[in-house]
C-alpha cells in the first residue's frame, strides 16, 4: 500500500491508439479503496479499451496504471475482470468454474474448493455446485461468473456490462445482490453499463466518457444515501441526476451505428 | 548344433502349394539334417521378391523366371540357381466343355494379369492365331479371372494350369478346357526358379548348395507322398488355406518338376527362350548371354 492514501487505482495520462485511431486520449482517474465507480458512454468511446488497459490485456501506448502504487500496465492477472458474456466453461461444474482461477495458476486445492463452496452456499447457489453451466439460467450463470471473479481474490474488480444480457427483473435482483456482496467483501468496483438507471443506482461516482477520441467528459458524485431501495429510481433526486446524465450523453449523440440516416428523422433535444 | 539361418522369400503374398517342397523339408527335418534353419517370408506384393533380396530381407528367392531377365536388364546382380518347374504350363483356359479355339480368337475378351509373364506369352498365342493385339480385348482381371470366366464376363482366362485347376476343380467339380505352352505357340520354358543375389551366392556357396539339396529331397518326398505333403504345408502354414485347393494344385505341379536331366537343372536353351520372349515384346532391350542369367554351379 504505497500509493496515495486511500487510492486503490490511479490512472495517469493514459493514451491508447489502435493504429492511427486514438481510442483513449489522456485519461486520468483515481479510484478510492472500496469505491463503486460506474462508467457510462456511447458505444465505441473506449470503455472496454480502458478496462483492457487496466487489466493488462492491452499494451498501452502511453501513461501509467498504478494499483496500490505499483505499475500494472501490461501485467494480466492483477485485477478481477468480468464481461457481459459469462464465459463459463461448459465442461466444468459450477464448483469447477468458481475455482477456475486457482486451477489455472497452481491447481485447485481442497481449501480452494471449500472456499468456493462456502461462497456458493452463502450466495444462494449451494444446491448447484455439481451442476454444469448448461442447466443454469442466465442470471445464475452471471452469478457464477461473478463468484469466479471474487474467488480469484483480487481487490479491484472490473465489471464490463455484466448484466447487459439479462432481462430487467433479473437485472434488478442482480444489482441488489452485487451491492450486498460489495458491502460484505469490501472490494473496489469499476462497472461499465449503458443503462443510465443502473449506473446511478449502483455508483458512488458516475464517470461519463465521450467518443472520438475516447476521453472522460464528466464525473458526477451520486449522493443518494445507501442502502438504496428500488423505488429511489423515481425519486426527484434520482430523476434530476438522470436528466443531467442523459443530457451529457445525448447532447453529443449522433445516430451511432446508423450510418447514412437522414438527420431529419431524428429528434435530438437542442 | 549351430544351424545356419537361411531365409526364403516367396513370390506371393501368402503361402500356397508351390511352397510344399520347402514346407516338407522343414517338417521332415531335411533342412535341419543339412545344418540349416530355414524360414520363409512373404513379400508385400507379387513383384517385390527381388527387391527384398536386394535390401537384405531374404537370402534365396522364389520367383517367376522373368524376374531374372528384368533384373539383369536393370543391372541388378541376381542369378537363377535352379529352375523350379521345367516346362511351360501356362496358356488359355475356357469354360468346361467349350474348347479353346484359336481360329475364333478374334474379337474375344481375354482376362490377363498385369505381370510380365502374361505380357511375354500373349504375342506367341496371337501369332499362332494369326491375329494382332488389336483383334482381341484384354481385360486386366488379376485374381478374379476364374469367376469372371465362369460368369461369362470374359471368354478366356490366362493362367498356369496348376493354379487354374486348383481354383476350379474343388469349386465346380469340373476342369476347364486348356491350351497350354507349345500347343498355344509358346516356347517351352520354365515358369519359376530359385534365385540369389550373386554376392550372397559367392559368400555362402555351401549353404546354398545344402539348401538346394535339402529342398530337392523335400520335392522328391512330396512327389511320392502328395497328401502328406499337403498336410505338412497346412500344418506349418495355416494361411495356405484350403486342403482341396492345395491338393489339386500340388498334383498338377508334380509333373512339371523333373526335367530330362533331373530336378532343378537349367540350360542355355531355356534362358535364351525366356530372354527372347521378353525382347520380342520389347520388355527388355537386348538378349544377354545365357550365363548372365543362371548358373548350375550350386547343384550337386
Amino acid at each position, binding site marked *: 500500500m504505497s500509493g496515495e492514501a486511500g487510492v486503490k487505482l490511479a490512472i495517469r495520462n493514459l493514451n491508447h491508439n489502435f493504429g492511427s485511431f486514438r481510442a483513449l486520449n489522456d485519461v486520468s482517474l483515481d479510484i478510492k479503496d472500496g469505491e463503486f465507480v460506474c462508467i457510462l458512454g456511447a458505444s465505441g468511446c473506449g470503455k472496454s479499451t480502458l478496462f483492457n488497459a487496466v*487489466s*493488462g490485456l492491452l499494451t498501452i501506448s502511453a501513461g501509467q496504471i498504478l494499483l496500490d502504487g505499483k505499475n500494472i500496465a501490461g501485467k*494480466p*492477472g492483477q485485477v478481477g475482470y468480468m464481461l457481459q458474456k459469462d*464465459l463459463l*466453461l*461448459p*465442461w*466444468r*461444474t459450477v*464448483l*469447477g468454474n468458481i475455482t*477456475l482461477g486457482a*486451477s*489455472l*495458476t497452481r*491447481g485447485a486445492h*481442497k481449501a480452494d474448493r471449500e472456499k468456493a*463452496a*462456502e*461462497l456458493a*452456499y*452463502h450466495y444462494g447457489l449451494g*444446491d448447484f*455446485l*455439481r*451442476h*454444469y453451466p*448448461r*442447466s443454469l439460467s442466465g442470471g445464475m450463470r452471471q452469478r457464477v461468473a461473478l463468484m469466479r471473479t471474487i474467488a480469484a481474490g483480487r481487490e479491484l474488480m472490473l465489471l464490463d456490462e455484466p448484466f447487459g444480457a439479462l432481462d430487467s427483473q433479473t437485472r434488478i435482483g442482480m444489482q441488489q445482490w452485487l451491492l450486498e456482496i460489495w458491502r*460484505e467483501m469490501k472490494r473496489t468496483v469499476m462497472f461499465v453499463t449503458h443503462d443510465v438507471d443502473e449506473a446511478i443506482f449502483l455508483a458512488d461516482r458516475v464517470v461519463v466518457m465521450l467518443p472520438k477520441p475516447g476521453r472522460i467528459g464528466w464525473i458526477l458524485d451520486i449522493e443518494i444515501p445507501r442502502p438504496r431501495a428500488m423505488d429511489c429510481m423515481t425519486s426527484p433526486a434520482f430523476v434530476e441526476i438522470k436528466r443531467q446524465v442523459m443530457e451529457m450523453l445525448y447532447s453529443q449523440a449522433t445516430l451511432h451505428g446508423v450510418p447514412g440516416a437522414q438527420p431529419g428523422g431524428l429528434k435530438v433535444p437542442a | 548344433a549351430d544351424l545356419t539361418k537361411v531365409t526364403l522369400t516367396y513370390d506371393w*503374398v*501368402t503361402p*500356397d502349394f508351390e511352397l510344399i517342397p520347402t514346407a516338407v523339408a522343414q517338417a521332415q527335418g531335411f533342412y535341419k539334417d543339412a545344418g540349416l534353419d530355414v524360414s520363409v*517370408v*512373404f*513379400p*508385400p*506384393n507379387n513383384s*517385390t521378391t527381388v*527387391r*527384398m533380396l536386394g*535390401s537384405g*530381407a531374404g537370402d534365396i528367392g522364389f520367383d517367376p523366371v522373368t524376374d531374372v531377365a528384368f533384373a539383369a536388364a536393370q543391372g541388378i546382380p541376381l542369378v537363377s540357381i535352379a529352375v523350379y518347374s521345367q516346362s511351360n504350363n501356362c496358356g488359355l483356359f475356357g469354360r468346361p466343355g467349350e474348347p479353346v479355339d484359336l481360329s475364333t480368337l478374334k474379337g474375344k475378351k481375354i482376362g490377363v494379369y498385369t505381370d510380365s509373364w502374361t505380357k511375354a506369352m500373349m504375342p506367341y498365342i496371337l501369332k499362332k492365331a494369326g491375329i494382332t493385339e488389336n483383334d482381341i480385348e484384354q481385360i486386366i482381371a488379376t*485374381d*478374379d479371372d*476364374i*469367376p469372371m470366366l*465362369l460368369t461369362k464376363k470374359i471368354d478366356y482366362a490366362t493362367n498356369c494350369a496348376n493354379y487354374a485347376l486348383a*481354383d*476350379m476343380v*474343388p*469349386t*465346380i467339380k469340373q476342369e476347364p478346357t486348356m491350351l497350354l505352352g507349345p500347343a498355344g505357340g509358346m516356347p517351352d520354358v520354365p515358369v519359376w526358379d530359385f534365385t540369389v543375389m550373386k554376392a550372397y551366392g559367392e559368400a555362402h556357396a555351401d549353404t546354398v548348395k545344402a539348401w538346394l539339396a535339402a529342398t530337392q529331397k523335400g520335392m522328391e518326398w512330396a512327389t511320392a507322398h502328395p497328401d502328406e505333403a499337403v498336410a505338412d504345408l497346412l500344418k506349418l502354414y*495355416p*494361411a*495356405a*488355406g*484350403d486342403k482341396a*485347393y492345395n491338393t489339386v494344385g500340388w498334383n498338377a505341379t508334380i509333373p512339371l518338376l523333373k526335367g530330362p536331366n533331373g530336378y532343378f537343372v537349367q540350360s542355355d536353351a531355356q534362358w535364351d527362350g525366356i530372354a527372347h520372349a521378353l525382347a520380342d515384346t520389347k520388355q527388355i532391350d537386348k538378349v544377354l548371354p545365357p550365363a548372365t542369367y543362371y548358373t548350375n554351379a550350386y547343384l550337386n
Partner: protein
Amino acid sequence: MSHEPSPLRDYARHVGLWIVAIALIFVAWELVLVATGLPAYVIPPPGKAIGVIFDNIPLMTQLTSQTLSETFYGYIVGAVLGVVLAVIMAQVPIVHRLLYPALITSQAVPIVAIAAPLVIIFGFGLTPKLIIVAWIVFFPVVVNVLDGLASVDHDQINLARLLGGTRLRTFMIVRLPACIGPLFSGLKIGACYAVTGAVIGEWTASSHIGLGTYLLTANAQMNTAGVYGAMLLLTAIGIGSFLFVVIVEHFATPWRTRMTAPAYFGGNIPPHASTQKQKV
C-alpha cells in the same frame, strides 16, 4: 435434487436401430443375389458366409484377435499422433503452414502403393501395419482437432490470461476440452477406417495371419464363402470400434448429456458444515 433422464431406453432404441439396419443390409444382400442370379462362388448367400464363421470358430477367433490387435494398436498410435500433431500445429504457426500441405499430400498418396516400401524399410513385424493403420486414422483426427482448436472462443483464452493462467494449464483446462467434440468426430471417422488399414497392412506384410491374409488366400482359392465370412468379421470390427468410441465419448463428455457431474467425473463436492448463511 437433479433429475437425469434415464438413458436406458435411449440405449435400447439405438441398439434396436442398429439391429434393424443390419438386418436390412442382409436383406439387400439376398435381394442382389436374387436379382442378379449370381452363383454362390461369385457372391455367397449371407447364410453361407455366416456359416463359415461358425464352422471354424477357433480359426476365426484367432484371425479376428490378430486383426483386432493390429487395428487397436494402430488406432491408438494414429489417434495420439493426430492429437499431438494438431496441438503442435496449433501452437506453432509456421509448423502449421508447412505441415498442412504435407498432411493433404499424405492422404493423396494411394496408401496401397506405399505399403511395399514400408515393409522393405520396417520389416515384417507389427511396425508397418501400425504405420498403415495410423496413417489412415491420424488424418481425420488432426483435421478435426485443428479446426476445433482454431475455433476456441478467444474470450475464454483472454479470461484465462486475466486469471493469470499458465500456458500449459490454460491449454489443458480451456483449449483442449473446447475441442473435444471435433476430436471425437475425428476419432469416430478414424475408427471406421482403421480396419481397412489393418487389412491393407496384412496384405502387405503378413508374418502373422489375420482376417486380411485369410481373405486374400480365400479369394485366390475361390473360397468365396470364406471371403465374405472374413468380410463380415472385418466389418464387425469396424462397427464395433465405431460404437466403442461412441460409448467412450458418452462417458468422457458428461456435460453434453447430463445436468450434473457424475461421481466418476469429479462430481464430488466438499462437505459443507452448514447450509446456513455465514460470514465467509
